[in-house]
């Protein structure tokens, strides 16, 4: 039995390797995506344009405007001449924010009163807008501190000192590249298995396998193991790229990462096999895989944190293996996550893997009746 399975695995790997189309799907897109998306998927906000409407004539307002202009966060800081220009500037997306300083700004400050400065932000880009607001706040705070000092006030005793653990400079790449390991290994695991049975059905070789001494369970193992090997290979390539090319720190335990990867791949391969036992053509297999992967990606916390979702949807994410592997990958890369913590995410994946693989086996056998 094991010898037959070994031959099936060998054949499967050879077939994937020798078929130009499969090679294209397995090597081209992941590589392209790794490179493009590593750089594109950044939640930092840079190179943004803002405008300032300064209706005040005092020195202080000019000082404040100068600070905005000198900030490295903004690419250009234009000057508006009147309230009427604010609307068009924002509407046309020329700027993401307008800083408006009222005409009594300097007077208020001189009188020792609070001087409000408005910042009007483009809500179409709410996410970036909120980050811009944060930058503006930092600028205003430092302006205030210097102002107090100049007026002989001591700097406020109480202050916040913020530090980011695990990623002190909040580098996007450190988070994106490990996340891509989750997404791309899922892509490979699902596509390879979903397509392999469908392809054999289309080519007529599937019946050839069924009349051979191979048992259905052996065929399933023979389809699972190659996908696992290919997925692990893909994962390893991304790991190397992350550490060597993207210089993402790797702080945790390599064996734990691979333990997670194996369970994760087993879970998604189960889904792939499930799809392939349902469909008749490669076409349907691609669509089926896609219909699974799009929500699985969204619910994993890859694009937006799981905590932001409503509670019922958070419950749904418990069935998504990517959600758990994402925690493991980021934890091991950046946080040196201890084994006890990793185990917290391992066992749900184990459950999901057992569920998907046994479900696939059941469907696969049923389809053969």
């Amino acid at each position, binding site marked *: *039995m094991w*010898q*037959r399975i*070994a*031959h*099936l695995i*060998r*054949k499967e790997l*050879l*077939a994937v390797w*020798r*078929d130009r189309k499969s090679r294209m799907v397995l090597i081209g897109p992941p590589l392209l995506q790794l490179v493009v998306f590593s750089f594109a998927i950044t939640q930092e906000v840079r190179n943004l344009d803002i405008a300032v409407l300064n209706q005040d004539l005092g020195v202080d307002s000019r000082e404040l405007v100068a600070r905005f202009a000198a900030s490295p966060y903004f690419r250009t800081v234009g000057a508006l001449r009147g309230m009427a220009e604010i609307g068009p500037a924002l509407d046309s997306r020329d700027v993401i924010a307008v800083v408006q300083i009222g005409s009594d700004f300097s007077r208020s400050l001189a009188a020792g009163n609070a001087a409000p400065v408005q910042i009007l932000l483009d809500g179409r880009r709410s996410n970036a807008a909120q980050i811009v607001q944060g930058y503006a706040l930092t600028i205003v705070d430092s302006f205030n501190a210097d102002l107090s000092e100049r007026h002989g006030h001591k700097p406020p005793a109480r202050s916040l000192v913020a530090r980011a653990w695990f990623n002190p400079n909040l580098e996007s790449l450190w988070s994106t590249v490990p996340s891509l390991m989750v997404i791309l290994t899922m892509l490979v695991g699902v596509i390879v298995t979903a397509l392999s049975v469908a392809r054999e059905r289309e*080519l*007529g*070789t599937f*019946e*050839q*396998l*069924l*009349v*051979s*001494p*191979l*048992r259905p369970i052996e065929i399933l193992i023979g389809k699972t193991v190659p996908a696992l090997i290919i997925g692990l290979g893909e994962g390893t390539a991304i790991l190397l790229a992350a550490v060597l090319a993207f210089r993402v720190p790797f702080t945790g335990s390599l064996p734990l990462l691979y333990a997670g990867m194996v369970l994760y791949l087993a879970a998604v391969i189960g889904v792939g096999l499930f799809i392939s036992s349902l469909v008749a053509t490669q076409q349907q297999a691609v669509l089926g895989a896609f219909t699974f992967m799009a929500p699985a990606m969204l619910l994993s916390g890859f694009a937006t944190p799981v905590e932001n979702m409503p509670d019922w949807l958070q419950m749904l994410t418990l069935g998504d293996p990517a959600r758990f592997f994402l925690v493991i990958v980021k934890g091991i890369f950046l946080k040196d996550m201890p084994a006890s913590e990793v185990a917290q995410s391992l066992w749900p994946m184990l459950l999901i893997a057992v569920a998907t693989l046994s479900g696939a086996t059941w469907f696969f056998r049923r389809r053969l*009746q």
Partner: protein
Amino acid sequence: MATLVELDGVSKRFGATLAIDALSAVVKGGEVTGIVGPDGAGKTTLLRLIDGLLRADAGKITVCGRNAATEAAAIHTVAGYMPQRFGLYEDLTVHENLTLYADLRGVVAAERARAFTRLLGFTKLEPFQKRLAGQLSGGMKQKLGLACTLIRKPELLLLDEPGVGVDPISRRELWAMVYELVDQGIGIVWSTSYLDEAERCGNVIVLNEGKLLYQGTPGALTSRAAGRSFLVTEAGEGRRKLLSHAMTLPEIADGVIQGRGIRLVVAEGEAAPTAASLGVAEEVSVWPVAPRFEDAFVALLGAKATHQSALAGVRHAGERDAIVVAANALTKRYGSFTAADHISFAIKRGEIFGLLGPNGAGKSTTFKMMCGLLRPTSGTTSVAGIDLYRAGSAGRARIGYMAQKFSLYGDLSVRQNLAFFAGVYGLKGERRAAAIARMIATFALTPYLEADSGSLPLGFKQRLALACAIMHEPDVLFLDEPTSGVDPLTRREFWAHINATVERGVTVMVTTHFMDEAEYCDRVALVYRGRVIAEGSPDDLKASVATGETQEPTLEDAFIALVDADESRLAS
């Protein structure tokens, strides 16, 4: 009749291969012109060139007075073209397919209603108008494909291998339809690699590797083989061995199995074969028979099929008369539809048993139940003493299976395919290496060992598929339409290997609706509407329908007569 197509020195090249090589020929109206040749001869390319779908690299093609290179659009209004898979939309109904082509060809209003009535009556598809084309049988699809090209009566009708995948009854109906069109003055071009079809054409263009070998009536070509064809009978059980021996003789140009005897064609100028010249001790009778187109065609191609198979040599010493494969009251129901209805038969060791029947008669269902791919609703099967559906792994190791078409891993090399199947069938170590080496030697696969098996020439694909099916020395070999759509030379070679396998005591079960294949069987069962309606040797079946009118019916005649008889019995 008027000349419809004129080809003058036409060449077409795809990359490095010359698909059509300086071809000059004509097609006339009011007759069927056959384009005949082995696989890869350039038949489809020629049809596409005539229809203006491809542009020739050199030479000139005139179709109905128009230049195919520059006036393709005009040609499309006067010519109808049916591609290999009939060009139907399988997810549209019969009526919707017809409507689409009526729209495209500008047949409207009253003219459309008349055309539909005419064509639906002509093709007998009237009752099936609402059925999806994908759910039609092969024969009906082909009739619908034809109807779609006939929506506006064309001057010229181009049909690309319309006879492939179609049973004899549908084929006969198709020819009747085609002759009716010919009577209306339409010129028809029919490409085929089946030589019995070529015989029915008024005119044939014989192609090989893009070159014209012959143009003229089939009769004129056939007459070149006059006086050279002989039927050697009473060869009995030894006919396969006799054939394989005869083919080694230099004076024999061609030979095939026909019923209980063998049919031989001697080389030009050679005398009739005798028992002595064939080297057999027993008494044989040698009858001169009328030549067939096939005899002349094989001679024209100048390629003598190698009937020598290195598989020869007796292995199994098992009892000759033991029943190896049996079906007992095998029944399969899908809801209220009964696909197979109490089918029973028994196959002895070393026998070739054929399951014949029109499309959709239930032979594939029966075949799948026999190999254990399908669970019978009731009844039992026994293959080498086991029920394959229940037996599992060990039982399946004792059978070999070759599916319809080429179903090996096209992306793997020949060697990798062999290694894979050896492994899956549990061959280990030295036995495995020896089995692979034996298959490579037997089927002369050495030059292609590292090539992708998908890129092999058809003959080698067949060899490889067979090698993978018999490498583990199975007791029983299942073949599902093994040579459907395959040219006569490749088919001869394939059957030479099967014959040698059988000589070694392997039992073979084959499904087919292709009569040349059925001739190779020791016994056949004719399946119709889920039941076995006739069983016996091919000669028995032929004899059972012989009447004063048809003294020597062909197997195809027998097939049709038996089905018709069953049909009328059911009606009464």
